[in-house]
């Protein structure tokens, strides 16, 4: 692992990697939220808040956070990273969820290559959280900071989707973002200490929404 960078440089780096300039296309994926809206499970700011808060803790984001933390630890070992990438792909419950994490991982790695020497980053089929964890570890960015940035970006992506789906406006979205801040911080702290033994969730409804979305017509999002 590289020497730890200054807090300011680390903050700028994370903001760059998770910014809309990066071609990760978070805006194109709803992670099942579009299906939940179509099913009437999410209809307003209150139910949106509940959906995001629940899926964050009990759904795929928790597994993603654990994978990011493990990849951060293993960042200088490409064999371990390859195993985590395989696990990340295998854990996907649906075709769209897999495409979301793999395509965004590839796009992230292409763009992040500008900060690294050739061959330093894992191959393109690495899922997004594993790719971010590996890159953050190699850059010497603190794991908990990287986790917080990653999880908060998942939340803002969900809120942007909700605005496009007319579930809430910007004011409602900002209110949810503020309310979820302690949750994001708590998850980042817990995930930083977690290992693959801590993987697991119980977001069965969100899983089914993610699977069903592939048949939803018409639709705005890729997942």
């Amino acid at each position, binding site marked *: 692992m590289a020497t730890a960078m200054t807090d300011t440089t680390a903050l700028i780096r994370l903001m760059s990697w998770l910014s809309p300039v990066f071609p990760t296309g978070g805006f194109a994926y709803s992670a099942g939220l579009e299906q*939940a809206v179509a*099913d009437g*499970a*999410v209809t307003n700011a209150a*139910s949106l808040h*509940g*959906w995001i808060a*629940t*899926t964050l803790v*009990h*759904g795929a984001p928790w*597994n993603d956070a654990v994978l990011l933390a493990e990849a951060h630890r293993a960042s200088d070992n490409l064999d371990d990273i390859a195993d985590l990438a*395989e*696990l990340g*792909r*295998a*854990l*996907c*419950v*649906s*075709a*769209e969820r*897999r495409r979301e994490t793999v395509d965004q991982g590839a796009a992230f790695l292409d763009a992040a290559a500008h900060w690294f020497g050739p061959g330093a980053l894992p191959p393109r089929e690495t899922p997004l959280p594993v790719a971010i964890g590996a890159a953050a570890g190699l850059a010497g960015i603190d794991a908990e900071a990287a986790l917080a940035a990653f999880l908060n970006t998942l939340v803002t992506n969900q809120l942007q989707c909700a605005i496009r789906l007319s579930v809430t406006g910007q004011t409602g979205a900002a209110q949810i973002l503020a309310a979820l801040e302690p949750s994001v911080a708590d998850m980042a702290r817990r995930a930083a200490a977690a290992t693959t033994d801590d*993987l*697991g*969730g*119980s*977001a*069965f*409804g*969100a*899983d*089914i*929404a*993610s*699977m*069903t979305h*592939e*048949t939803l017509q018409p639709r705005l999002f890729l997942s």
Partner: protein
Amino acid sequence: MTVEQGRIEPAAMQRSVGAGRIAVKAGPDGRTRLDALHQKANAKIRIPKAYGTALEAVLINTAGGLTGGDRLDWSAAAGAGTHLAIATQACERIYKSAGGTAQQTTRLDVGAGARLDWLPQETILFDDSGLDRSIEIDMAPDAAFVGLETLVLGRAAMGETVRRTHLRDRWRIRRAGQLIHADNVRLDGDATALADGPATLAGCTAIATLVHVAPGDDEQRAALSERLRAALAPMTAGALQVGVSAFAGKCVVRLMAPDAYRLRPLAIAALSILRDGAPLPAVWRS
């Protein structure tokens, strides 16, 4: 019993430790035959009269369920060119734990050109129960596997609700050494917090996951998922939910229902399609 500070504490309880292993091989007539059978303590394996060319095995936990500190290990090997269908005699009850969690492991090996069907009946989690379970499946490149696991929270028919439980349920499927499927289910602590949210249990207490892995291309898998959706959609009403997705060499189905009684017809319909209409083991039909 040991007496400590005036309270009576149970001494370390004698818990059940069962293990059962079955291996099958292809006979000269092409039929699947028993190769090896090992049974320890409360783990028993019965071989009822087989149908067709497959061999059917029924797993029995004679302890009648699992509680904290119990351990149960099953393993099965389907040799080259065989077809092994495994069911359980009864639902597996995970009782209230006086301490610790029950441990259950299952290991399945599916050889070249072989097929294994893993068809246990429901696992019922009682209030205050604890279960750590893992199932590991290793497949040859051209092997086939169909499996399901059904979790039921409490006995709805008896008005029982599960307020607290500890469940870790872990699936891993490897084909030619490559991990192609992983699923970790985790229910920790307060189950009532997950009960009604649409993203979690959505008012359901019975959840089934089915996985199908077999040789074939993406087009065949897409056709399979279409057949599943067409068959299951008319059966879903009210709180019943069905998710189907075929990708990366597999087809995954998740089902949810308010109770085990309403889940069963969905699981049976899905299994019928995933198993090309083969009849379910007799224990499923009683």
